[in-house]
């Protein structure tokens, strides 16, 4: 796939990666 001619949609952008509690602890100090 050529990067320049593909469209990527991120559905639900802004909430990626966090299990319950993870965001809270990351706000205190990333780890």
């Amino acid at each position, binding site marked *: 796939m050529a990067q320049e001619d593909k469209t*990527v949609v*991120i559905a639900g952008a*802004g909430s990626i990666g966090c299990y319950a*509690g993870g*965001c809270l602890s990351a706000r205190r100090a990333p780890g």
Partner: protein
Amino acid sequence: MILLVRPRMEAALQGGLRITDLEGRNRSDPVGLAQNHTDPAAALPDADVILVTVKSGADAGDGRADQGHARPDAVVVSLQNGVDNADRLRAGVDGRTVLAGMVPFNVVQSPDGELPFARPPRQRRQGDDRDGDAGLARLLAVEGFAVEPHADMKAVLWGKLLMNLNNALVALSGLPLATEPCRSPLAADPGRPDRRGAASDEGI
């Protein structure tokens, strides 16, 4: 790139997007470079790749409904937490390619809005390693945000789940994961100074 977001997030992005990380990257996305939509019917028809990052509970409704707006050849990648989201998305569509992926870090929205999104450093997203997906990994990988194909995503997803069982202890103790292992019983063993290494030795 198109961001399919909730109305609240669309409002937050009206001034553009700035992304930082702990390695010092600081990228600003001028308004208009990334398109923002709240309507799947507007966001999905042109998609070649759809990264699904909604919470698991939203799959049954939003996930399948969203895919109805996408082209049949659009590749869907579930980057959701949990171990069976890709399977459930796959079961809801006919013949569409649905892959599993894992993001090993949190994207944090700054509470004061000054640094809208940030992530910890030195970690890679991982995704299904299947025929033809090497091109997908190259497409998704950008500087500071590498993608690593993996042959056994179930194991990767279970690994993240096990690591995140620690979240409650982190939140309650106020000790970040980077600090906490130094105080753990495993850290007291000179032969195992790194609890993550010890966990890895046990196949986690």
